[in-house]
């Protein structure tokens, strides 16, 4: 009898929790649909407050990281500082993780995300991307003893290392569902796994694998670009048109001073080498294969 009661209580608890959960979800959707009170701050509101919240990585050297004096540095941060300067406001850097970038914009807790944010169709439904400022595609690095130059070389028992939440993981799951993946949360763990021979290869952004092969003897990037060419762009909350337009104008006007080339030379050249500059940098929001066409969203359909 007593047991029955406990079971009953447990079931009741569960249903209550579940209904609570779904309640929260539906009410959350309601607020975003009615959008009478926008989650984001418009350009004027940001200017008036004198402070802009920009979400950046704080542990992704050389895009966004914190140096030994506690200052934010990197390719994304260099651009963020310029935005702050040209807007005439102070910057409040917010440390974001790969997994919570969209959430930050959806709740308006930051005004802009500048955290190595790859433009994808899925993300574009939830946030608004500005013009791109960098190219990225996937790459695969493997040991010299057995360089993988094509994914078809992988046998049934070979595993590929990926970092959770990255485009590499998504791409492989979607296009090569048969390849066994080894997932790690942190760069350092993935690196150790490859060096310990846990897997046949490591798939990541091509910038990452290029830098890795440059610094570690005995490893080669067998596949320098895999899948579609993607771009990296700033993102704002869905519907924040004033801020989006300002960022796009800013990116276009910065082209006259070759701003992103200078940014590359200051922050990325040490890691990736000068020879990749033209391939990686996007100036004025114009990607090399689609000159003059500012619409980048359909480049992923190829």
């Amino acid at each position, binding site marked *: 009898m007593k047991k029955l009661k406990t079971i009953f209580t447990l079931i009741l608890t569960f249903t209550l929790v579940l209904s609570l959960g779904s309640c929260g979800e539906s009410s959350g959707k309601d607020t975003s649909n009615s959008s009478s009170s926008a989650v984001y701050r418009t350009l004027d509101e940001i200017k008036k407050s004198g402070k802009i919240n920009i979400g950046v990585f704080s542990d992704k050297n050389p895009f966004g990281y914190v140096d030994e004096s506690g200052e934010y540095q990197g390719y994304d941060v260099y651009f963020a500082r310029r935005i702050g300067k040209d807007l005439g406001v102070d910057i409040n850097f917010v440390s974001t993780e790969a997994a919570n970038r969209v959430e930050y914009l959806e709740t308006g807790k930051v005004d802009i995300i500048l955290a190595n944010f790859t433009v994808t169709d899925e993300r574009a439904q939830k946030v608004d991307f500005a013009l791109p400022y960098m190219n990225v595609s996937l790459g695969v690095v493997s040991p010299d003893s057995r360089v993988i130059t094509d994914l078809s070389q992988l046998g049934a028992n070979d595993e590929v290392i990926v970092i959770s939440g990255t485009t590499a993981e998504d791409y492989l799951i979607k296009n090569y569902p048969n390849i066994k993946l080894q997932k790690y949360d942190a760069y*350092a763990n993935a690196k150790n796994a490859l060096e310990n021979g846990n897997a046949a290869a490591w798939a990541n952004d091509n910038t990452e694998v290029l830098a890795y092969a440059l*610094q570690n003897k005995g490893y080669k990037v067998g596949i320098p670009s895999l899948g579609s060419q993607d771009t990296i762009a700033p993102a704002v909350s869905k519907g924040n048109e004033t801020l989006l337009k300002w960022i796009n104008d800013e990116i276009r006007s910065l082209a006259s001073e070759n701003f992103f080339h200078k940014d590359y030379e200051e922050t990325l050249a*040490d890691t990736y080498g000068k020879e990749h500059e033209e391939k990686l940098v996007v100036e004025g929001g114009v990607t090399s294969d689609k000159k003059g066409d500012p619409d980048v969203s359909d480049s992923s359909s190829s």
Partner: protein
Amino acid sequence: MADLGLDVLFKGRNFIRLLEGLGVALRISLIAILISIVFGTLLGILRQRENLLLKFIMRLYLEVIRILPQLVLLFIVYFGTTRSFGWDLSGEAASIIVFALWGTAEMSDLVRGALTSISVHQYESAAALGLSGAHIYLYVILPQAVRRLIPLLINLVTRMIKTTSLVLMIGVVEILKVSQQIIEANRMKSPNAAFGVYLAVFVLYFIVCWPISMLARKLEKRWG
């Protein structure tokens, strides 16, 4: 001696940044622990009452908090409250709320357990001596219960201090985040820095948690 990357720790403000990160972690956990001890004790005593509705609500609260991982709770409180009610809580405030909710739930269960473990004849003997209900608790039950509670409480406190490492997911830069920042900032120049930095983090956590254990042992002996 192998290169453990210890030099990275003393570059620039790195070590001070680690200490600042530890400060953030301690601030969050200690405030939450104080709140938890007060409310957890109250709830724990209330749960002794023979009121079915009250018991059910408390049980529901405890189970909900226990079932949900702390990370989910952090996301619900930090992002969820902004979505649903438009509150703009800071990451640190959200962390304190979550840790206080969690601590209160666990604490109330610990207090309830400690109180239940005091045998009925203690209550009855005290009542036979003519003590009133409040006095029975204050002079007879609580002193014995607290003694049984101390080791469990210490366990909870150290667990809460260590779990603060999750708050980096809502943008709070605490000691573990600082250590990741230091490791990643130096990953090209000193790839072994992870050893040295995590070693330092271990030592710092130890320095904080060890005195708490010592204090608990002393208290147990004094009240024992």
